[in-house]
């Protein structure tokens, strides 16, 4: 399987990262990573644990500063910018572990970051989220830490949406969730994509991801070892098994 050369900066890319090198102390976790997402595109980030997926997402949202490399969000250089700046510039973040505030209610969590998006657009409202996730509506007044894993995931996604982002990063979208809930999450992501929001999703359910996404990127030991379409992925199952399986 070939390593696709990094595509040149297209005018309709919402996110472009080039030459990212991130360290945790002396540990070189991301090695010269190039990563781009087109407007409205859904891209998956694949790879086994410890390969750098979470670190890449955290670098993109600005929670971790890369030692070298550049990040551009919607044409604006945000390298080294603080996370709050990048978030307000239109990037939503759904972390591994969900990041629900346990001492706030569901409703308070949901509306926490509610704000209009770029050009004042308001595609998402509280009611819209409750319509997609009726379970959340039922649990409106519960505390954050009283929710099941699936409900927490719905809540985090809803919370990210209410900030009307241009692009959402989702780390471990369906980890530990029952198949029915997984279906709901994928369906929701499709709705989000239809509204033109770009999505970067990390998950291990390859089967579902191949159906969902336009493009896939595989990280191994901090390096990009594959970038291609679902068809290209399907064409080399041995490679996939070696990269993602046992």
């Amino acid at each position: 399987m070939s390593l696709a050369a990094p595509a040149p900066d297209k005018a309709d890319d919402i996110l472009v990262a080039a030459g990212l090198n991130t360290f945790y102390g002396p540990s070189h976790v991301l090695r010269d990573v190039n990563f781009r997402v087109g407007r409205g595109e859904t891209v998956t980030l694949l790879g086994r644990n410890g390969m750098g997926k979470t670190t890449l997402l955290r670098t993109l949202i600005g929670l971790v500063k890369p030692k070298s490399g550049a990040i551009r969000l919607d044409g604006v250089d945000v390298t080294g910018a603080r996370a709050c700046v990048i978030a307000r510039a239109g990037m939503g973040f759904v972390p591994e572990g969900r990041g629900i505030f346990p001492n706030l209610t569901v409703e308070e969590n949901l509306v926490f970051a509610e704000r209009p998006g770029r050009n004042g657009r308001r595609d998402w409202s509280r009611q819209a989220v409750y319509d997609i996730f009726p379970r959340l509506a039922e649990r409106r007044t519960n505390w954050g830490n009283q929710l099941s894993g699936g409900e927490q995931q719905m809540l985090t996604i809803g919370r990210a949406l209410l900030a009307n982002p241009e692009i959402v990063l989702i780390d471990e979208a369906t980890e530990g969730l029952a198949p029915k809930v997984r279906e709901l999450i994928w369906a929701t992501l499709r709705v989000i994509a239809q509204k033109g929001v770009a999505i970067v999703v990390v998950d291990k359910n390859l089967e579902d991801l191949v159906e969902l996404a336009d493009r896939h990127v595989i990280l191994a030991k901090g390096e990009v070892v594959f970038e291609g379409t679902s068809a290209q992925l399907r064409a080399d199952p041995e490679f996939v098994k070696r990269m993602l399986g046992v």
Partner: protein
Amino acid sequence: MLKRPPLSVAIFFALLVAFFFVVPVFGGAYAVKFCTRLLILAAFVLSLDLLIGVTGLVSFGHAAFFGVGAYAVYFVSPDDEAANVFVALSAGAALAGLAALVVGALAMLTRGFYFIMVTLAAGQMIFSLFHDTDIAKGSDGAYVNVKPMLVIGGASLVDFSNRSQFYYVCLASLAILYFTLYRLVRSPFGRALQGMRVNETRMAAMGFDSYRFKLAAFVVSGAVAGYAGALFACLDGFVTPELMSWQQSGLAIMMVVLGGGGTLYGPILGALAYASLEELLKTESLVGPFLANHWRLGTGATLILAVLLMPEGLAGFLRRAARKRSETAPALEAPAKAARPARRAKALSTQALARSFGGVVAVGGVTIRFEPNLVHAIIGPNGAGKTTFINLLSGATPPSAGRVKIDDLDVTGWPAHRIARHGLGRSFQRTNIFGSFTVTENCALAAQARAPSPLRLIDAIYRRRDEAAMAHALAVVGLADRAGAIASQLSNGEQRQLEIAMLLASGADLIILDEPLAGMGLEETQRVVALLRNLATDHTIILVEHDMDAVFAAADTLTVLVQGRLLAHGAPAEIRSNEAVLEAYLGGPAKPGAAA
């Protein structure tokens, strides 16, 4: 680790001592009294550095022990006679040491902010004991009417009411205390204390019982503070409870931090500098009337600037001004290249081992046996409970149910340091070494763990054995040429190698490694894999890893954990073709697109 002071500092202190030596010759009564006060203060702050700088315990009640020592002199002094010098001074140290034992026994059960609060409370209670009751005349204070003397055969050898004699006793005391504490901190006992300051978890995992070490440090430190307090009582002949207030404890902490904690000479400098600064700012002829009348503005502002600009204190400032001269590590004899004899290592087995947190099952009923002299790899998708499982094996977390055995010894529920003493060593997910120490010092601590008693004060007894272990360990992992390097400056791979070296040096033959290859490049990975295979001759190795290529190159058995339960255990080839395992990793049907 505590090093020999750099040459510039040694010269500076030599000059300082010379200066102090001649003060009584050239200075008047006030100068002598002031300098005596400085010396006593320096001794007090020195004792606090043993706690704060060396052991990392921030005590906010230390002045109480100083005060107890002072009051001890009052207690042993008859109304109209001089007490014996030795009796008075040792009473001070003993009574304060006893108080420290009582307070420390409880305080060592707490950490961090709570430790600060408990020591503060203890200090306040002791203050209240002397202030609100009349065991020693209460808030009025008490007088030592006749200062202690040393009378032998009718001849008075030392008389503390003689200003100059007392001064030289204080100067000598400070010097002796410094050198004694210096040797103590450089001993195995002191090295262990420094290790606990930097990384208490690691020390426990190596087999050190930190409670006993810290309590010993607390008592020694309290006794020295009491000694200083006893001297103070002999200076003025008057003791009050104000000596014990938390404000005094706070001032002492300030001087330690100002001088640079952990160096022993730094806090002495801090005490001298602060007291001199205060005196200077009070002198109208030098700083003008405004500053002299509001000298606390001056000291406050100076301290704030010191914190913001000199985080390492005066000692750090001096060190940086000195030419860089790293203490060369003693050359370690590379062992003769004899092949290591194969030796039966220990087996580790579990029975229905389980752990829950709240209602969540992290590890559910795992029964497994890790055979000796093999490399075992534990794998599993995210959230599978692998680290929790390791914590159960090493004693870092007690199990909710089930048993753990090393060979036939049941170690279920034992604390980490106890299990470590029975031959089990482990590394942690994020590299967990003593970053500020050198490679040799890291290994020395590990080697010391073979005999981790707090009573080890002399190196000589085990030195040969420890040094052989260290040299051997470093040679095996390939770090022998980096012996003098500071650990935090090693590359990631080298740090992981150091961790393994430490486990070897500590004599562990059952070694558990949590993600040892994380963040490593290809070459480093290959080196470590070769090392692990080499070690299997005389060790049992268990590792958690995600790097599948490495796992297949290194491991004799594979164990798959999914959602806390044992899914499969066997030879790598079997596991690879196991359907259930593939599903756990890839989710859904094994081949992508097959079920479309």
